């Protein structure tokens, strides 16, 4: 860098530590004004406008928001000041308040890291792992399209190990805090002794920079040009696919010359299209690690279930199905379209003889209830789409009530079907879409799963 040599002795190591590869506001820096001024004057720090204005359209340079509804004013010392409401919870970005970053390239100097995981990858996982290592060395984009229960996390291990040993910073980004909390201990166990930070709103590691980072996409807003290997888990999951600013966060946090890996069981259309016509390198793992085919969903018509619930009745087909499995000692997952229906359904199940709980996004006891379900203390868990991903319970049977609702998109239905049969000893099980009229999403979801099974049989990934 073009920093004069004689000044090298006087820059602040501490400030460098705090600002390197970051993108921070003045309020996030606990240093004196003089110190920051001095570093700007001597070319160590850049200060850029936090909101840019182009033809009367505003853009927040921290979160990338361009929807004008998110920009508002506060009145301060006789002037209206513009600020961004989209990321205000991370500290207010307003005009005249710059965003600071350290100019110098960051050098990586961490010790070599050994994979301490002693599991074995299936042939499908191994294939993906090899492709990933290649993508890392070539700094390419890659889509790993792996079915639910393929063992996505494990297949990342060899790639992460190789990247870390090349001095590359790796980040696994996911839209959900739940996933960060689930992944962090697994990675810490797999890479014992490595410096790993888990970043989510309220975590102790917030704002840290380490060789391996597991982060919610939101927390990435604090970084800039930091990541060499960016792995986006559940790329299609809400809210990443919905929220433009989170995509901006990912692009900003990764280096210009870096690897970008998308990981999903149900990639969004655009990625699928790119993968199919060769614009995006991709690898498909059509089978689960236990080499059994995916359970295919069945459609069961259950009449006007809304009306029945309003009359405090469970549709008989649903009731019979649940009672059958509960009697056999198999836990049942029942997905419903909304919180209000969840409450109604939970009330209806009060009369049925099984241990029932319901859980939704804002439930304070969400963690405990899910844990009880995992431990086998509950027979039936009624839930909204929040548990469509990541939850693994052996022997579980899955039903969707009101599968025709618009919230159950193809990818949601495929993910939900992916809850069943994840354990190798109970690889089979029911997936039932209870409906009052089939939708295209339901048909597409079933087709998707069938295709994956056919592909798996063809390439002999299943027994």
């Amino acid at each position: 860098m073009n920093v004069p040599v004689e000044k090298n002795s006087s820059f602040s190591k501490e400030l460098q530590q705090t600002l390197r590869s970051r993108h921070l506001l003045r309020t996030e820096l606990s240093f004196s004004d003089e110190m920051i001024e001095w570093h700007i004057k001597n070319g160590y720090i850049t200060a850029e406008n936090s909101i840019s204005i182009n033809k009367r359209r505003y853009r927040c340079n921290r979160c990338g928001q361009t929807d004008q509804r998110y920009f508002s004013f506060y009145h301060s010392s006789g002037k209206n000041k513009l600020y961004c409401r989209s990321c205000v919870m991370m500290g207010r970005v307003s005009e005249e308040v710059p965003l600071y970053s350290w100019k110098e390239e960051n050098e990586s100097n961490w010790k070599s890291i050994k994979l301490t995981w002693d599991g074995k990858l299936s042939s499908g996982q191994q294939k993906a792992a090899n492709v990933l290592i290649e993508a890392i060395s070539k700094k390419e984009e890659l889509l790993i399209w792996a079915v639910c229960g393929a063992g996505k996390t494990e297949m990342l291990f060899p790639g992460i190990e190789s990247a870390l040993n090349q001095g590359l910073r790796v980040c696994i980004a996911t839209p959900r805090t739940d996933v960060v909390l689930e992944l962090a201990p697994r990675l810490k166990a797999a890479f014992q002794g490595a410096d790993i930070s888990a970043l989510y709103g309220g975590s102790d590691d917030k704002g840290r920079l380490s060789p391996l980072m597991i982060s919610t996409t939101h927390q990435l807003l604090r970084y800039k040009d930091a990541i060499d290997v960016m792995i986006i888990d559940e790329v299609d999951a809400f809210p990443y696919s919905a929220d433009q600013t989170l995509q901006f966060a990912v692009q900003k946090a990764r280096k210009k010359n870096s690897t970008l890996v998308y990981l999903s069981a149900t990639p969004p259309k655009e990625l699928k299209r790119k993968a199919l016509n060769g614009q995006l390198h991709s690898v498909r793992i059509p089978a689960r690690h236990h080499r059994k085919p995916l359970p295919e969903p069945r459609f069961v018509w259950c009449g006007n279930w809304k009306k029945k619930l309003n009359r405090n009745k469970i549709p008989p087909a649903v009731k019979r199905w649940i009672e059958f499995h509960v009697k056999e000692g198999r836990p049942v997952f029942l997905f419903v379209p909304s919180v209000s229906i969840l409450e109604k359904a939970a009330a209806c199940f009060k009369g049925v003889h099984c241990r029932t709980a319901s859980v939704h996004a804002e439930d304070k006891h969400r963690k405990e209830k899910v844990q009880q379900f995992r431990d086998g203390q509950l027979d039936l868990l009624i839930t909204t789409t929040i548990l469509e991903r990541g939850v693994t319970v052996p022997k579980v049977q899955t039903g969707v009530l009101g599968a025709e609702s618009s919230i159950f998109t193809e990818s949601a239905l495929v993910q939900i079907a992916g809850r069943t049969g994840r354990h190798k000893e109970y690889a089979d099980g029911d997936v039932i879409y209870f409906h009052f009229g089939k939708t295209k999403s339901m048909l597409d979801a079933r087709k998707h799963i069938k295709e994956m099974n056919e592909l798996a049989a063809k390439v002999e990934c299943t027994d």
Partner: protein
Amino acid sequence: MSNEAGGGIHKLICLLCDSQFSQDVTWRALFLLKPDEKVCYSCRSKLKKITGHICPLCGRPQSVHAVCRDCEVWRTRIRDSLLLRQNRSVYTYNDMMKETLSRFKFRGDAEIINAFKSDFSSTFSKVYPDKHFVLVPIPLSKEREEERGFNQAHLLAECLDRPSHHPLIRLNNEKQSKKKKTERLLSECIFDTKNNSAEGMNIILIDDLYTTGATLHFAARCLLEKGKAASVSSFTLIRS
């Protein structure tokens, strides 16, 4: 501006939870006579207004209509002629409100004032129907106001569409919310005013939160004692 395809006549974004909601289509709404709702139904229902019995002095929601213990203590500490006459508030301080207020004040999201505006002004005209009152928003210290960029009490006073006066000067600059209850009750000298600055006025102090009442009681005392105000009451957004 809508980035969703299709949609009804009137799609709005909730100020608090960012989700999309729609407003009932009525003739008034259609002819733009009614301002747009700012908050969705679900968030609105989580902001609880104070109803039912309250303490006649501080406006605290409680099960009986009687002076509460805290107010009894205030009565013994300050002479009747220098006492805040009464306080009234709009909302209770529940979790939703805590979250919203912290976003508004500490994160500095000034736009959130629009979520409170209509409730704040309609409750005000219900409890203080007289027009001869003078509004005095509680000032912030200079440092605090610079950091935040605005004074939430000013924004609240602006909602009421009446002229306001600024006779009070804030002396120390610590945040009240960072102090313990006893500390707050002890720090009497937080305001000053010029002699006779409010002579003969009937004042209503405006603030965001009534917690122990210390801020408002000391402001009242200052205005009555030194400013020679005729009476001082208060109106806050929240009674915790």
